[in-house]
């Protein structure tokens, strides 16, 4: 395990150091990360980064299989257009996490910002996942085209909704699982409530266990039966709005 002190190191240099280091040791700890962008970008499988501090925007952009564990909060654009890999954030994260991600998983212990999972996709065996322990901001799963989002809503205040407005708006694929029913007015018109089947329950069980393991949380109060599943009305939502000349 190699340790890199990132204090005062600019992102370009830091990423170059990481690129060089993975040839020596694929297991790297980064200390004193403070806002450096693009940490973990395009990194391949078998690389594991442990980040102590607050990584900057676009962490793990285009990532190709690496694993990143952040002890701290993450900023905007986590896992932007990520292809594969795993991200575990012991804290909150900013906006647009998982934008257009195609594979891999992002686990966020706390809350997440706006437009999480926007335009998430899936392709064959690649099925991305975003799991959020707390609440999410507006436009969760906007334009969602594949994969799954699980929102637990832990630690909500009384009467507080776990998702913001326009959840699943423009959705044309994928699934959103909310630990409890969202307010009707917060749902985008392209998302509909569908019944949980056994596959869904097994899927939720698996990832709840993962979450509990990663964040050392007792989730016995979270009941799988009370989850609500939303999916796209259809995968061609705008088919009938045009008149072809």
């Amino acid at each position: 395990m190699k340790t890199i002190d990132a204090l005062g190191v600019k992102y370009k240099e830091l990423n170059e150091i990481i690129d060089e280091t993975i040839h020596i040791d694929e297991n790297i700890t980064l200390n004193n990360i403070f806002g450096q962008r693009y940490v973990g970008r395009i990194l391949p499988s078998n690389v594991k980064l442990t980040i102590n501090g607050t990584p900057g925007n676009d962490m793990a952009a285009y990532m190709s299989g690496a694993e990143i564990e952040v002890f701290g909060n993450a900023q905007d654009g986590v896992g932007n257009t990520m292809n594969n890999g795993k991200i575990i954030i012991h804290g909150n994260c900013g906006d647009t996490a998982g934008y257009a991600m195609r594979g891999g998983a992002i686990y966020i212990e706390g809350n997440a910002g706006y437009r999480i999972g926007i335009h998430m996709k899936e392709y064959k065996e690649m099925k991305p996942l975003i799991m959020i322990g707390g609440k999410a901001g507006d436009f969760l799963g906007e334009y969602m085209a594949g994969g799954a989002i699980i929102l637990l809503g832990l630690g909500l205040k009384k009467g507080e909704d776990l998702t913001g407005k326009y959840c699943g708006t423009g959705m044309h694929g994928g699934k959103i699982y909310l630990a409890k029913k969202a307010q009707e007015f917060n749902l985008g018109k392209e998302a509909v409530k569908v019944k949980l089947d056994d596959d869904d329950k097994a899927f939720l069980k698996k990832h709840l266990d993962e979450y509990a393991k990663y964040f050392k949380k007792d989730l016995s109060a979270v009941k799988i039966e009370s989850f609500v599943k939303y999916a796209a009305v259809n995968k061609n939502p705008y088919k009938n709005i045009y008149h072809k000349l």
Partner: protein
Amino acid sequence: MLNMVPSAFKIIRDENKCIQCKVCVKQCANLVHYYDEEKDIVRADDTKCVCCHRCVVLCPTKALTIINYPLDYRQNANWTKNYMDDIYRQAQSGGVLLASMGNPKPFPVYWDKMLLNASQVTNPSIDPLREPMETKVLIGRKPEKLEYDKKGKLATKMPPQVELKIPIMFSAMSYGSISRNAHESLARAAEELGICYNTGEGGLNKDFYKYGKNTIVQVASGRFGVYKDYLNAGAAVEIKIGQGAKPGIGGHLPGEKVDEDVSGTRMIPLGSDAISPAPHHDIYSIEDLRQLIFSLKEATAYKKPIFVKIAAVHNSAAIASGIARAGADAIVIDGFRGGTGAAPARIRDNVGIPIELALASIDQRLREEGIRNEVSLIAAGSIRNSADVIKAVALGADAVYIASAALIAMGCHMCHSCSVGKCNWGIATQVPELVRRLNPDIMYKRLVNLVSAWNHEIQEILGGMGINAIDSLRGNKLMLRGIDLNEKELEVLGIKHAGE
């Protein structure tokens, strides 16, 4: 509901010439022609005709003529046939009118209102047939100054450049919007010509990675097929912010065009709509654009120039300044006559500005700010011939993109029906039997012919000006004169009137 829209075209079959061979019946994917067995004649349903000329060109006896449907409406300069027909259509379907290809309205074409200079007596003209004539250009950020070491070797580190033997590239058209065979033709032609073609936003098919050094890979808001290998496959990466045919709105490839191969290239599920949101949702400012530019530079080890493509709109000059400052290596400006596989007709016909005006004002703005060297400018949006290329370079372009012209070279007859997906020429379709009609072995050659011919013409025009390198023409507005333009237009274009 009663269809109140009359036929657009009328098919005239010369019965003396028609031999009932049924080629037209077989060739028309719109099912216009049909054989009447009882009477042993071929008939046509005019209402289905889009005027793509496939039947006219292939008819062995040249028996077919297509004319505009001769139906007069009561004369009215305001309520013209087109506007009335559109109302019939929308009253019937309630749909947003969806059009294809570029803006067909009679707006001024400034290329046709600019005239070129040539040498007479002084600064003698050059004959490119016998003297060297350089049309090679390098696209990318240029350093402010060059420094050399004591041995005279270049000491300045050059930012990444794309070398084009001819200042013409094939503009972005995704696999999905056009066929695989059309893509292959463009890629092979680009390779032979020493230029680049652009993947568009639909990813890059595995079979085409071998054309990488002649490929510009595009990243649009949908991020289709974007991953590490894709970003590093081409000569440059282009961020698509906007498109001249539909500024401000996104794209939408309907699920029926997402077959196995398109789905694999875009890396999305089979039959799923491929929706590109109107904005990139990680870009709400120039600073955010900088973030994406540098994420792509990081992903490509700073070895690829990053282009940013915008539609020509009212404040393009200020936006271009921001893009240059955001770290882009080239700016692509797409004028309002640029083509599209599908765009809402009202947007295509009414949004954006001509490329000529946008290009001139952007070049001027970047010069005034002293940052013109920091980016290359690529003009797009209906470059129709070599004279348009020359005029674009004189207005400040480093290179141009052509797409409609390339499609026409492959047989497109501008029927404006790409979005329907039944292109009889095998271009804008994913229907296997239609795609097969486009033979890449032949079509790539036609593209090579077209661009080579333009290059010869460019060399002739340059020679006539007494210039032996296209670099010397860039932004050389003294080589242009306006004709039939008012003072404001001349001012924006930065040119004098003919006779001045």
